[in-house]
């Protein structure tokens, strides 16, 4: 059954990572992504990867879940590796038939591999240990400073919350609608582009109309409970940084600075 916790692969738990403030996790993810693009040699990226892997182990999430999440991208990963490995010009190491592996090729494919793995793992780790609601709250708090420039951060966060809340409801409604139209003889397996477009009308029109009706009723209910756009709102569970959050941010910062310094000085001694 599709519910708030099956979207975005959230797996509830009580590990250190789970208990971090969502802002810490989002900011760490941001730093990781920036590093991934700045760093360009395997050793630095390898250190980064090692760090992420350590974190995933402490999160208590089974490796099987990670593999399931990464499976869809394995093909792309393999293709990228293949291209880098066999088609990068440079110092030949090994050859088989028309295919040559160069030293540069090995390094480049290592970099590509590590970049992809680090980004995917980091993103998965965050979404697996943070509920969609927490992510929304974290994002809202992080966007708050931009409110001074007119960014409606509160409204954006509320829109996300409501959208997430309605996904399972709308999905169930769509399923029911498909069955109802099929009972009337509608055929959604029609061949041909114009036929397909016509066939889909009995789905699209009611879904939209019903969604607008919902939105209308929900807006009335929200106003009845005192909601006004732009007005300041309290929070049931305000986000608060803990000692651990500061510690993690500090460690992140240190590692980032260290790796950047190493890069600026020309990389690790060979």
């Amino acid at each position, binding site marked *: *059954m599709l*519910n*708030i*916790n099956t979207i975005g692969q959230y797996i509830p738990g009580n590990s250190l990572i789970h208990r971090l403030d969502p802002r810490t996790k989002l900011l760490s993810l941001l730093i990781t992504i920036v590093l991934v693009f700045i760093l360009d040699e395997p050793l630095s990226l390898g250190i980064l990867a090692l760090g992420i892997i350590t974190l995933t182990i402490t999160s208590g999430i089974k490796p099987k879940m990670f593999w399931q999440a990464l499976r869809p991208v394995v093909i792309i990963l393999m293709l990228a590796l293949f291209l880098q490995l066999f088609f990068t010009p440079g110092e030949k190491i090994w050859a088989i038939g028309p295919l040559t592996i160069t030293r540069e090729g090995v390094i480049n494919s290592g970099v590509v591999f590590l970049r992809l793995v680090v980004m995917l793992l980091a993103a998965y780790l965050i979404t697996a240990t943070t509920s*969609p*609601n927490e992510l929304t709250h974290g994002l809202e708090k992080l966007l708050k400073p931009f409110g001074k420039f007119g960014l409606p951060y509160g409204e954006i966060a*509320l829109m996300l*919350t*409501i959208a*997430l*809340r309605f996904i*399972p*409801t709308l999905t169930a409604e769509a399923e029911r609608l498909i069955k109802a139209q099929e009972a009337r003889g509608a055929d959604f397996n029609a061949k041909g582009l114009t036929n397909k477009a016509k066939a889909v009308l009995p789905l699209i029109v009611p879904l939209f109309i019903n969604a607008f*009706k*919902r939105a209308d*009723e*929900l807006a*009335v*209910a*929200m*106003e*009845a*409970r*005192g*909601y*006004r756009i732009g*007005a*300041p*709102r*309290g*929070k*049931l*569970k*305000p986000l608060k940084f803990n000692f651990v959050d500061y510690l993690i941010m500090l460690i992140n910062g240190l590692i980032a600075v260290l790796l950047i310094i190493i890069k600026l000085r020309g990389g690790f001694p060979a």
Partner: protein
Amino acid sequence: MESVIQTRGLCFSYYPAEKERYALQNVSLSFLQGEMVALVGPNGSGKSTFFKLLAGLLEPTAGSVEVFGKNPKSLKEEGTLGTQIGLVFQNPDNQIVAAVVEEDVAFGPENLNLSSREIKKRVEEALRLTGLWEYRTRATYALSGGQKQRLAIAGALALKPQILLLDEPTSMLDPLGRKEVFELLEKLNREEKLTVIYITHYMDEALRAQRLLAFGQGRLAFDGRPVEFFAQKALVEALQLAPPPLYQLIEKLRAQNLKISDAVTTPELLVGELCQLL
């Protein structure tokens, strides 16, 4: 006893220039604190228009409506209407904002910009009143219809209104949900002394109110006790309604000289009185 809502010559029309097309005409009445009132009438009779005027969703064409002495529409614009009148609507799903129960109840208090501690307190109170405290971390999607509607009531209660105004709160629920919700309303009226005003199409629910307002063709056709309303057969029929089966049974028994009091509004109460007679 205090009057909490007052209407004087209340009228509404979408076409004010055309005298025949008034959705609601000339309703003057008061609601007192602690009353439990059922609003009945066929579609187009004006009861929904009356509801919307009380709820600040429409502005009167003529006459006035005051909730605790203030105009509901301006209260709504200030964002404080919910602290005087809690509104609950027919479709449980379209009142739920959040994916988690306690977060949804918190929505109202959050809009009042209360402190986190006060919000938590109100959420707990509202959830306990509606019997949903054990469900506070549940996904709202996973609730039954009756639970969702109780959640909507909790969300309204979190703003601490003295009045609850409900539009067909049970018509989309299964029998178990209907029972849950209606018994909750009776409890809130009885124990928390809330004024409960509800539109209903179920005559057995109307029978259980203290006071019944019947609307017909834009006018107030009856204002009094439910049993007195159902006794007026011609009026009931003219409004395309029928007395609940239980009432019909009691009437026939009384016609056979069985003394059954007006307090009997459920099968259990009927059997209780019958046993005392025997």
